[in-house]
């Protein structure tokens, strides 16, 4: 209150007097500190605990001892964990590539001179707002009941039974559902990117007699390079953590053929008494995610500059 007279002197000044600034600092601290403390208690502290547990033989209850790196060494010899990593990576790479191809194609279509533009955009974005779990349940039914009937009618042996029950094919069902749903999000991002391209570029290319493919390669794709980077990194990061689709479609089965790393950590950690072991797996998974995301960003951004 005492400060009221002071600013009148320098009412046009854009910098606050120093004495006042120091008092404001406490307000800012008071705004930020509770959140920081809570974030530490409920996010950072559990993460540190998880890392500490990863060096023990803790089962989630009872006593435990420190065992050093034993859990980590075991993961590299654990066929089930290795299979989960293989499955997760193959799935994530395929899903990322498919989603980006489909999303870019659809986005270019939606950005073109078409009828019902807003309506179609609305439809293509719809899957993104639906619960992944419920979508998985719906497709689970379709794979079990509808697809076999179509397979029989068309005489395709591979589709005549429930693909989710086949250890060799179950992953294709998960891939299909994941791509069906995730494409929506990437379509909208690509569409936002396409709208930043000035139309004159295409007019100039038309005058130079460029074909459709040439225009795509030399104008569209370079111009949306940053959006390509974002979409690739976000999609990959999301698909590596695939969980809901697996629960809804296969529960990791048949056998353990469709267990992702997240699913294995959940299942082994809560039901399998492998609290410490799966904590080690989670730490390893964290390192893998960071390395993949950073490498991807690095490589894709270099490409942006060259383009």
């Amino acid at each position: 209150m005492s400060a009221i007279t002071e600013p009148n002197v320098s009412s046009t000044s854009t910098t606050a007097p120093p004495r006042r600034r120091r008092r404001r600092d406490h307000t800012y601290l008071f705004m930020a500190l509770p959140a920081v403390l809570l974030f530490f208690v409920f996010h950072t502290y559990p993460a540190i605990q998880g890392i500490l547990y990863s060096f023990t033989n803790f089962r989630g209850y009872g006593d435990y001892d420190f065992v050093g790196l034993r859990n980590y060494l075991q993961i590299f010899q654990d066929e089930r964990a290795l299979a989960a990593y293989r499955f997760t990576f193959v799935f994530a790479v395929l899903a990322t590539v498919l989603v980006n191809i489909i999303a870019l194609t659809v986005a270019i279509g939606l950005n073109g001179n078409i009828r019902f533009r807003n309506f179609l955009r609305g439809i293509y974005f719809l899957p993104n707002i639906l619960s992944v779990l419920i979508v998985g349940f719906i497709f689970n039914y379709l794979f079990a009941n509808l697809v076999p009937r179509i397979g029989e009618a068309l005489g395709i042996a591979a589709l005549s039974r429930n693909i989710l029950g086949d250890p060799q094919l179950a992953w294709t069902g998960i891939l299909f559902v994941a791509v069906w749903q995730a494409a929506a999000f990437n379509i909208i991002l690509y569409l936002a990117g396409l709208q930043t391209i000035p139309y004159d570029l295409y007019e100039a290319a038309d005058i130079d007699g460029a074909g459709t493919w040439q225009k795509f390669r030399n104008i569209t794709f370079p111009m949306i390079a940053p959006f390509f980077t974002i979409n690739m990194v976000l999609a990959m990061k999301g698909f590596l953590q695939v969980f809901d689709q697996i629960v809804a479609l296969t529960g990791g089965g048949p056998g353990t053929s469709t267990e992702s790393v997240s699913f294995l950590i959940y299942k082994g950690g809560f039901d399998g008494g492998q609290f410490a072991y799966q904590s080690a797996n989670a730490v390893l998974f964290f390192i893998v995610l960071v390395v993949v995301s950073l490498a991807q960003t690095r490589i894709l951004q270099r490409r942006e500059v060259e383009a």
Partner: protein
Amino acid sequence: MTAQTGDAKRPNWGVTLLLCLGALTILFPLYLAVVTALKTPQELANSVFALPSTFRWQNFTEAIRLTNFFTAFRTSALVTVSVVVLTLITNSLVAYAIARNQHKRFFRYLYYYFISALFIPFPIIMLPVVRQTSAWGMDNPYGLIFLYVVYGLSFNIFVYVGYIKSIPRELEEAALIDGATTWQTFWKIIFPLLAPMNATVGILTCLWAWNDFLLPLVIISDPQFATLPLVQYIFQGQFSTNYNLAFASYLMTLAPMVIVYLLAQRWIISGVTQGAVKG
């Protein structure tokens, strides 16, 4: 969007047709979900595609009874609304404090601290946090609300800080000169100006809290506190003999977000785009 007035008279029907066909791959599974929810098991056995002879609304009432739908609906609604409101109020405030003090080392490190947490996958904190929340009596909807608000901080601070930096400081300084405290300045000047980002954060948080499955799955131990996705999961085994009931139940879980989407489609799409491009 750009100057295309000349071509606007000649829409590209070929591309339109292809996109309509593509849209069918999205609408067809949803169509099947709706007709399945309205059939008898007998009708379903005869034909998966066909429309039902009469709409069997009892499937919905029966599913409501079996899943205790309204209990779960109330839980999900309570969680989602509380999380959205609390997130908008608290996360923007923290972001403001950080954004306006980035010249100070302490706040700059706070910013990096929150952002770097974006890289930490949930499985790494999942096992310890479940022990922690159950030991502290937070294995209920209130604990869930709390965790969503806290876990949203990383991403929300990122998008809010980027936006707040673009707001000219002169506005706040004018308010300070008029004798407003920093709190008053935030609520009266900054918070209203954050409207576009509030919309983005609100929409993304709403979709997250309503649809999320993993956090309720590990946190909620008592089935009476289950959120809607969790209820569908718990009852899925029971339903496996009656798809009609299951689909009625699924549709009721999806419906609220679909209705919100139909009403606010434009904002949702632009909100999600803004959030993601920042992210």
